[in-house]
């Protein structure tokens, strides 16, 4: 049938939530995920989770401190951020976010301090010029499990509030069918956990002594979370495909006709299924690979939701084009946030270097002198 419509003149609306927003949702998600993963080892004092918990705490702290900077940068008038705090706007999830974020970051810092207090105290005992500073930072105390647990539970509450608001903030936007789904907050949380497990695997390799036990545990955790991600994704797709839910059918319908979106969907499935399969089949020795893919998957999910979602016109035909600008509103924002995170990681690991693992030390101790002996022979 020769019936068709060609749009001749229309306006192209540029993306209004910039890559800064992607970075914010990525980092705050990783922070929340990292905090959750740190709780068994610290707040619940499970010794077998302690090593993983320490890396997860690094994830929570570094990402949690970098995230608000990205969020502030996404405001087109960042200097007016105080306007959030002189009004009561309970109808706006973003306003709630402006309350929850500082709350979360504060309790996270207190929790982090409580967890690291033992290490601060140990550094204070070492004969160095900085010992006094460490002693000051530890406030004259050491490990206090009751304090860690109390701070951990407060931090958990803060993390759940952040997870709730970040999900709801986007899911309530009825004007964008792709966002307006109750699955979105769950998907944000699960992909954040997967990303956090991925970053734990990466930091374990590069910044925490490459502990095999941590790798296996984190890979198993990752597999479990990715299983959840696939389950929720499949449910979302089924509701849309079979027209069981109008919102999901509309969301799917808004992008199903696009080749680029189909490629993205295949990519997303691969980025979830692949690390899942690897982590299940071979949890040891694959952490770098699964970690990288999981981290990339968590970022891609947010990029697709935010930048991809904004390229679906609300009234116009087809899709808007998006090309990543090189400046602060694009690439520079992404690189800058990543740089800030890296700086925070270097600073934190410089102040609190990874403790030497006691377990492998005796195993290696006899081998160390064996070398010269063997050579002498």
């Amino acid at each position, binding site marked *: 049938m*020769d*019936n*068709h*419509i*060609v*749009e*001749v*003149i*229309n*306006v*192209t*609306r*540029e993306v*209004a*939530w910039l890559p800064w927003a992607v970075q914010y949702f990525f980092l705050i998600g990783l922070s929340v995920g990292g905090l959750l993963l740190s709780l068994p080892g610290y707040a619940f004092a499970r010794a077998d989770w302690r090593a993983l918990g320490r890396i997860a705490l690094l994830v929570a702290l570094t990402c949690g401190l970098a995230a608000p900077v990205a969020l502030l940068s*996404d*405001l*087109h*008038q*960042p200097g*007016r*951020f105080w*306007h*959030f705090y*002189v*009004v009561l*706007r309970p*109808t*706006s*999830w*973003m*306003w709630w*976010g*402006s309350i929850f974020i500082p709350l979360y970051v504060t309790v996270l810092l207190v929790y982090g301090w409580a967890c690291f207090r033992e290490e601060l105290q140990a550094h204070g005992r070492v004969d160095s010029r900085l010992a006094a500073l460490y002693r000051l930072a530890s406030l004259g105390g050491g490990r206090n499990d009751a304090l860690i647990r109390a701070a951990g539970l407060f931090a958990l509450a803060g993390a759940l509030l952040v997870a709730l608001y970040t999900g709801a*903030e986007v899911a*309530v*936007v*009825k*004007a*964008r069918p792709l*966002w307006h789904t109750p699955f979105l907050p769950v998907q944000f949380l699960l992909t954040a956990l997967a990303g956090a497990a991925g970053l734990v695997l990466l930091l374990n390799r590069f910044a925490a002594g490459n502990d095999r036990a941590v790798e296996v545990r984190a890979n198993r955790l990752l597999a479990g979370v990715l299983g959840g991600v696939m389950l929720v994704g499949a449910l979302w797709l089924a509701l849309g495909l079979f027209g069981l839910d109008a919102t999901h059918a509309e969301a799917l319908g*808004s992008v199903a006709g696009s080749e680029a979106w189909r490629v993205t969907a295949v990519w997303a499935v691969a980025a979830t299924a692949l690390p899942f399969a690897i982590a299940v089949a071979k949890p040891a020795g694959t952490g770098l690979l699964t970690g990288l893919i999981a981290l990339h998957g968590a970022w891609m999910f947010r990029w697709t939701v935010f930048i991809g979602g*904004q390229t679906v*016109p*609300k*009234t*116009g*035909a*087809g*899709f808007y*084009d998006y090309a990543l600008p090189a400046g602060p509103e694009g690439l520079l924002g992404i690189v800058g946030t990543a740089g800030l995170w890296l700086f925070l990681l270097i600073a934190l690991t410089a102040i609190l270097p990874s403790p030497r693992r006691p377990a492998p030390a005796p195993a290696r101790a006899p081998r160390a002198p064996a070398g010269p002996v063997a050579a002498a022979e």
Partner: protein
Amino acid sequence: MDRSRRNFCLGAGATTIGAVTVAAMPAAAAAPGAASPRRDGDPAHRWAMVVDVGKCVGCQACTVACIMENDVPENSFRTIVSTYEVTEQGKAGSYMLPRLCNHCEDPPCIPVCPTGATFQRRDGIVVVDNTVCVGCAYCVQACPYDARFINHETQTADKCTFCVHRVEAGLLPACVETCVGGARIFGDLNDPHSAVATLVREENPKVLKPEQGTQPRVFYLGLDPRFQGKVDGTPTLWRPTSQPHSQKEHA
């Protein structure tokens, strides 16, 4: 009966004097959410627009008039006439659809605003106080009509205001004033004798995306249902040179 420009001006003349007096006051901007008679509008009115699609010739005079009147930055539009080539049974024709902020009765852009910078006056006009707006663009996302954008000169949310400064002075919005075909009709829904109230009452006009539940106060006469929501068609012919247009059959 404010369909004609002259009658509208005479009818609103009385309010003009008051509006001018109040206009001398400094904008109540420093404290977010502060109220003043000028900010809040007169609840006696409920301003609305009826667009008679059949009368629009797609000249974009409204688009240009709006830009000139409101100093809209380059590449941004508070209103535009979306223009489509519609082919049916091999015969091609044009379809014009003027788009602007719908000044909804239940505007989804307002509850999401975290600072109260965007609000609805008592006369129904939805405005943004750009001295309060932080440019978070949440309202841009929440608007189902793509009517809002970030103004890169003020770095705040921007949109059609029904030319509130002109309406308060007893004038018609610039787009209505300049419309050569008389396709845009502006007036007071609270006045049962006004042209808009009569048309809304008698002509059963349509609104865009009624399923969103926003209750727009921009009504359309002769609105083709295919253009009521997201248009299913080939997007604008213009493409960056690196992306040649794939569908050539329309050439």
